């Protein structure tokens, strides 16, 4: 909260307190209304509180978009892979986790087991079966194949398991508490903190550890990395594994709200793409920024403009960004090759 924010809030509270005191009995005389200037001010403060609440819950949603977007940019940087099935990569762990939970595993255990399964299925198998054989043909081939994969995953889940939405236990209890009049749910706070810890953890891993730096070297220049003795295929596999684990975390955080359903990845995947491109496709910090921008602007637009057009907000921001800054807010420019 900034300096200018504090005193108006206090004054608003004082005024609210006043009205509570007088609200008990029927007033015999008209309550002396505050001066017009002050009334507008109070209204402004209340709106401010609404606004902050919206922004905060937008942060929570946005941080989940950021998780999916981060995996997306990592795959693009390290392996030139655009994964159209990113949304389904979140859907599948949600169902795997539900399966483990139904066998009586507590949520943290289920998460760890799911992360292992996902690393094998969505990391290793995806890389070996789809990306490796297609890598030599170029990007669009992988894109089309991953579109095919997303259709397979979604519809096989529907046909083979269930077309219903399944409830999913939340990691956090859903309580409301208020800071300076702003009501905040523990779920939102927990989600935001969890997602931020994971995003910054991944970034610290990339920036600080030898393996992480080797992965970045592979992403920047594969040939030089090979010459320097870096095990390139292994680094690329690590990227796929990180993407799979990020998808698991996103699944754990988003499914209590979205419910586990075969098509839950549809909007999530698209939002993650938009977030990644808004932030800058070749910058992993961009994914976080893009995710938060999409989450917050969606929430604000739903509240102040039209909830029906909420899904179009990410698109509008995306269009503005690619028209004026095609490389994304934090991205570097890439030269076009002849």
């Amino acid at each position, binding site marked *: 909260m900034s300096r200018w924010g504090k005193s108006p809030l206090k004054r608003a509270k004082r005024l609210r307190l006043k009205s509570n005191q007088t609200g008990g009995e029927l007033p015999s005389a008209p309550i002396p209304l505050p001066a017009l200037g002050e009334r507008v001010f109070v209204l402004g403060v209340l709106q401010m509180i609404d606004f902050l609440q919206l922004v905060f819950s937008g942060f929570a949603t946005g941080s989940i978009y950021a998780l999916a977007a981060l995996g997306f940019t990592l795959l693009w940087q390290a392996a030139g892979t655009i994964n159209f099935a990113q949304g389904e990569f979140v859907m599948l762990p949600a169902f795997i986790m539900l399966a483990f939970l139904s066998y009586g595993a507590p949520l943290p255990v289920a998460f760890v087991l799911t992360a292992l399964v996902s690393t094998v299925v969505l990391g290793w198998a995806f890389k070996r079966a789809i990306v490796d054989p297609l890598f030599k043909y170029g990007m669009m081939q992988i894109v089309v194949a991953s*579109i095919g994969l997303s259709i397979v995953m979604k519809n096989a889940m529907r*046909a083979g398991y269930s077309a219903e939405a399944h409830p999913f236990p939340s990691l956090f209890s859903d309580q409301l508490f208020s800071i300076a009049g702003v009501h905040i749910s523990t779920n939102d706070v927990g989600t935001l903190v969890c997602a931020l810890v994971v995003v910054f953890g991944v970034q610290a891993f990339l920036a600080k550890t030898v393996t992480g730096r080797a992965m970045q070297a592979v992403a920047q220049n594969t040939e030089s990395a090979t010459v320097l003795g870096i095990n390139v295929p292994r680094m690329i596999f690590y990227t796929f594994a990180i993407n799979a684990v990020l998808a698991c975390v996103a699944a754990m955080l988003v499914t209590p709200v979205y419910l586990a359903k075969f098509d839950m990845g549809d909007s999530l995947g698209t939002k993650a793409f938009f977030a990644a491109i808004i932030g800058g496709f070749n910058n992993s910090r961009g994914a976080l920024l893009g995710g938060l921008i999409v989450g917050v602007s969606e929430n604000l637009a739903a509240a102040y403009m039209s909830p*029906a057009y909420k899904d179009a907000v990410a698109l509008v921001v995306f269009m503005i960004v690619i028209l004026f800054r095609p490389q994304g807010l934090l991205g570097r420019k890439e030269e076009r090759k002849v």
Partner: protein
Amino acid sequence: MSKRNIFLGVIFAAMVLCLPPFLKNYGVYMFSTWLIYVIATMGLNLTVGYAGQKSLGHAAFFGIGAYTVAIMMKAGISWWLGLPTAVVLCFVLGLVLGFPALRVQTIYLAFATLGFNTAVFLVMRNEEWLTGGTFGLNGIPRPAIFGFDLKGQAGSVMHLFGVEFPLAKDLAFYYFVLAATAIATALLWGLLRSPWGKAFQALRDNPIRAESLGIDTRNYTLLSFAIGAVYAGVAGALFASLVDFIEPAPFAVGASIMMYLMVVVGGAGYFLGPLVGALIGMLIPEWIRDVAPSLANWYLPIFGATVVVMMVWLPDGLMSIPDRIRAKRDSRLASAKRAEATSEIAAIAAQSEGVAQ
């Protein structure tokens, strides 16, 4: 055109002309839907396959065409006025959608077009006063042509060799769609053989080279979107009249992705690719839904898996199979000739060696 191609063409024409009278109503309906998707994907094939612009928003134009005609016909305006309106609207919006393509390419463009589709879908779903929202619009009439109402009548029969065949109600409209498909195909064929068609392909193969050769890449990029959109619009106009009830679902992003896959599976940049693509992506799943409903749910997973496998083994689509076989045969012939020549040279060398000694 080889003799075999002409032969295959004649068989195909005979099939689409003569088979439907023997089908039940649902069969005729499915064939009509198939042809409508062929028109739509032909447009997408121009944008994606010939001009190389990755568009994932084609179903939006399909929907715009359908809704334009539906809304106008509900207001009592003739289909023959609705069609040109839909065409103009799609052309203009296609031009507009082309603009992002001037800034960004490949995957960025794919997402921009996908987003456009989402926006159009939201308008269809939310603006109830105009589009009926999720309830959709129903009771869209069929057009009349030369005073002949294409609504069709139930219970007409055909006498053939003394046997009575009941005719499907939708048969008249089917032939109308067939004629429209034939016209659309002929126009596209002409367009692709013209300098315009060559310019589109130059744009796809190497945009910078095309520009340096004096092709106005900006105009051709926009036009490839606009003409593709017009095809989708015409298809949509026919679709609205065929199904007589439209709602937003068939025009969602998923439908665009399906159309893109139809083009890729059939063979992007192959003239007849959409015919095969729509057959696999549209006609066969509908047919399976009719004859084996329990299998219908598994069609999409299998289709998706086929796409994945095709990307590895047959990335240019099904229509590229003859080319592949030809290329293989040519290379086999060439290597046989090479082997022959090598042995001849060896023989000559051996002879000359003998002479020298």
